[in-house]
């Protein structure tokens, strides 16, 4: 093991910042995601609160150097709570002209742009659609431009290494990372350590990458590139062990934790679809936890197999996105009717139909609540942040097993790919889960639909249990016996029982929490992955003394018991969501006609800024704003 030496001596003034937002951008092949997540890890290790967001090109590979092929990674880090990856970047690294083109509108005025001049060849400019070189005309006047021939500097640094041109070229991302580490006062060591592990068998590559990383740092020092240096100190985060977690991995881990805590093997039936495939793929890496992953022929088979596994007494789950969710509609109805536990994850993307597979949206709420034929109530939950995907998945398992019901989790593309630090919970921070498994042979025979008087859940007798043989299915039932019946009273009673069971779960779920005073001018209600943007906006308004509060819903059906009461304290209620107004329609129907709405349906997440602006405007001219979005 050797030591890292970098130029430590620097005369530059260091400014302290509360938060900073940086972004790396380049071609799909430029290793952007790697350096982005390294920067995020390094910041987390320094104790910052962080939120990051990778952005991949749409699903078909665009030609190298084109705007469609740009890959980027943005991270916000701060000395206090950070809720989003940030609206505007304070610093952007653009590895080529296309990356600049794709990201320049997201850079804050006066922000830093480090541009790899080697990526601004005539061909690059043409592919990016630039008539002239933006680094040379005046078009970027409002930014701080730092042109650096990163490719060439990398080649210089590796002159003594025996690497191919291609290998050399591929190392340039670490040069950029080194510069940024200096600029934001991060430490290099964790990344070096990571490289050592990753390339333990390839010492040449390892040495080269470390060399380049250090060269980037040195270059920043020696070339006196930047007039200042920034420092973001540690945030007062809860004590504990942390790791970074994306929404998709969070869901996978939450399901496995549910399996451990319930003692039931996890069965996952899935079919690949963007942006949910990662859940399936992550789970395949946990076979040693007994996780059974079945890659089915389609989404119908995925959920059907999960229902079979659930009938067999496994903890069963499936995950998909919009088009796949639509295909699962019929089988979800069977899950409701059979009253089998099942967790169904919908990682929402832009719809309708194939829509925009890599873009985020919240437009499947209606479907989750109302998509099935017949009266088919079930539980709908939504995580607020990437890391919360873990907790929501675990909660979904708990509810599914306790109440013998399917539970839909509405995640989204933004949560799925976004990462944030997650404090690893201790073993006893997670409750035990007791499934409704029964082995007792009651007098008069087993009645599969006899309900627990408190939870209204039926008992779960699984094949293999002696003397509890019985049949279940999708036909209407007589009541406790589960015998097929077309009797009008039986049907009416069962429809009510199924609805009452789900409605009652509200008593077993946390109350909605208010951020802000419990009365005032505006209550903003949001759900799902928009939490960060809305919370940031509301807190900033609160700091400005505005009478604004925020409730973020994790339970969409049933609603938290205290929601109606919370709403009563406010003059105006505004529901902000990434659709044309779905939650707002439900709330209007359930609680009060007079609720305002703020919507965006563009495939992009909210920025905190646009919500702040909207609320400012709203406060200024409250009336006639309905359907303003």
């Amino acid at each position, binding site marked *: 093991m050797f030591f890292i030496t970098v130029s430590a001596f620097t005369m530059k003034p260091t400014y302290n910042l509360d938060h900073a937002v940086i972004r790396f951008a380049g071609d799909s092949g430029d290793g952007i995601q790697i350096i982005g997540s390294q920067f995020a890890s390094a910041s987390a290790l320094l104790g910052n609160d962080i939120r990051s967001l990778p952005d991949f090109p749409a699903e078909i590979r665009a030609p190298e150097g084109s705007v469609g092929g740009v890959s980027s990674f943005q991270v916000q880090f701060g000395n206090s709570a950070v809720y989003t990856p940030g609206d505007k970047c304070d610093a952007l690294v653009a590895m080529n002209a296309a990356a600049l083109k794709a990201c320049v509108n997201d850079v804050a005025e006066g922000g830093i742009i480090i541009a790899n001049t080697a990526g601004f060849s005539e061909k690059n400019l043409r592919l990016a659609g630039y008539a002239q070189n933006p680094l040379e005309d005046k078009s970027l006047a409002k930014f701080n431009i730092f042109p650096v021939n990163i490719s060439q500097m990398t080649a210089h640094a590796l002159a003594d290494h025996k690497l191919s041109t291609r290998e050399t070229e591929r190392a340039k991302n670490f040069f950029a990372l080194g510069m940024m580490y200096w600029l934001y006062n991060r430490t290099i060591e964790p990344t070096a350590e990571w490289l050592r592990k990753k390339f333990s068998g390839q010492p040449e590559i390892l040495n080269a990458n470390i060399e380049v990383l250090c060269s980037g740092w040195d270059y920043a020092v020696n070339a006196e590139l930047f007039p200042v240096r920034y420092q973001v100190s540690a945030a007062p985060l809860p004590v504990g062990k942390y790791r970074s977690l994306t929404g998709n991995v969070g869901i996978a881990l939450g399901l496995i934790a549910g399996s451990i805590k319930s003692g*039931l*093997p996890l069965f996952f039936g899935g079919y690949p679809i963007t942006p949910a495939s990662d859940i399936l793929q992550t789970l395949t890496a946990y076979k040693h936890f007994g996780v059974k992953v079945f890659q089915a022929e389609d989404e119908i088979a995925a959920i059907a*197999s*999960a229902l079979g596994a659930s009938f067999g007494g496994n903890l*069963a789950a499936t995950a998909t996105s919009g088009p796949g969710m639509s295909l699962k509609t019929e*089988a979800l109805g069977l899950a409701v009717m059979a009253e089998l536990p099942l967790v169904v994850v919908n990682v929402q993307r832009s719809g309708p139909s194939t829509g925009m597979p890599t873009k985020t949206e919240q437009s499947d709420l209606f479907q989750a609540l109302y998509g099935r034929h017949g009266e088919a109530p079930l539980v709908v939950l939504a995580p607020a942040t990437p890391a919360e995907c873990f907790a929501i998945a675990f909660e979904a398992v708990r509810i599914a097993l306790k109440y013998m019901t399917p539970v839909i989790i509405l995640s989204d593309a933004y949560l799925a790919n976004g990462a944030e630090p997650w404090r690893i919970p201790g073993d006893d921070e997670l409750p035990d889960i007791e499934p409704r498994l029964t082995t007792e042979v009651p007098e008069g025979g087993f009645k599969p639909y006899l309900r627990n008087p408190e939870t209204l859940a039926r008992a779960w007798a699984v*094949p*293999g249990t002696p003397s509890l043989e019985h049949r279940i299915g999708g036909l209407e039932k007589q009541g406790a016996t589960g015998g097929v019946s077309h009797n009008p009273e039986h049907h009416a009673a069962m429809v009510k029982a199924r609805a009452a069971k789900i409605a009652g779960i509200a008593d077993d779920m946390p109350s909605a929490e208010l951020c802000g005073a419990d009365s005032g001018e505006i209550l903003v209600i949001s759900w799902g992955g928009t939490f960060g943007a809305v919370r940031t906006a509301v807190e900033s308004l609160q700091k400005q003394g505005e009478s604004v509060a925020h409730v973020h819903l994790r339970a969409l059906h049933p609603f938290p018991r205290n929601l109606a009461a919370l709403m009563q304290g406010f003059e105006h209620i505004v529901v902000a969501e990434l659709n044309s107004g779905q939650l707002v329609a439900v709330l209007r129907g359930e609680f009060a006609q007079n609720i305002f709405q703020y919507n965006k349906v563009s495939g992009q997440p909210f920025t905190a800024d646009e919500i702040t602006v909207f609320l400012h405007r709203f406060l200024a001219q409250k009336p006639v704003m309905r359907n303003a979005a």
Partner: protein
Amino acid sequence: MNNLIDSITSNGTAEHNFTVKDLRPAADVRWCAGCGDYSVLSQVQKLLPELGVERENIAFVSGIGCSSRFPYYIETYGFHTIHGRAAAVATGLKVARPELSVWVITGDGDALSIGGNHTIHLLRRNVDVNVLLFNNQIYGLTKGQYSPTSQHGQVTKSSPTGMPDYPFNPVSLALGAGGTFVARTLDRDLKHLGAMLRRAADHKGTSFLEIYQNCVVFNDGAFDEFTDKATKPERVLFLEHGQPLIFGANKDKGIRLDGLKPEVVSLASGEYSAEDLVIYDEHDPTLAFLIANLTYNPDFPRPVGVFLNVDRPCYEDEITAQIDAAKSTPKGSNTSLQALFASPGHEWSIA
């Protein structure tokens, strides 16, 4: 990770012996009088106690259709699912619980029309379940529309001027999909039916058994040619492994191959003897496909019996093996929550 299921279910203890009587449930059997489904039910009921499997370890999974009501009529575990999805549900059940004896009950519409994809994927994966396909060449439950096994030109409620398409041959389809056990039998030949059910139960892997089943209401007599005493001997070819393909009331006809072309020859004239005939080999997919293709050919008797019986690893065993392998790695020794949450090299502490 302890597995709650293992702790509460029985593990092959001999105590749970049962008889046909134990299989009779409270619910009335509700098929039409004379429906071919009855004889399958009773043969299955007869077979189960002989399998050496506890009653509680048997599960029937069905789709939707007359035949799919079957699970209600047998006192084992049962799941009457939705139209066409029984194969997929059964796959999940078997992967979740490989120790169970899982049976799929389905109809020609259920398995081959709406459920065709799950059926072929089940066969491809070779999940160890037994598929009983009740083929009545009609949609019974919805009152008489044509199915993918109805005959070209057949007049039904939805084809007043004749069924416009050509039927699947379920056996050929199963062979093409990579089925490892593919057989056909007749509701009215109880002995053969019973024997085929037994063979299906004994096969490790997906057993695909097509059962010609008479629907007395909507397609009565569809198989009379093959079940009526008078015509059956001439019109049915029973396949038996290692035996020559002989048929006819007087066992005086046989199937011979001219290259790859099958032909019916008479054993009566003396020109041909049993030695000239095809000796059936249930391990040969080519022969199975060749014979299966005689199915709708009026010049040949209808082949019935085990077409193919070969071995291929079962899907659920592969899954189990991969899990066992993962468990036996060093990583596999720690399946605590903290091991789950660990992200070596990506963790940090805040103190």
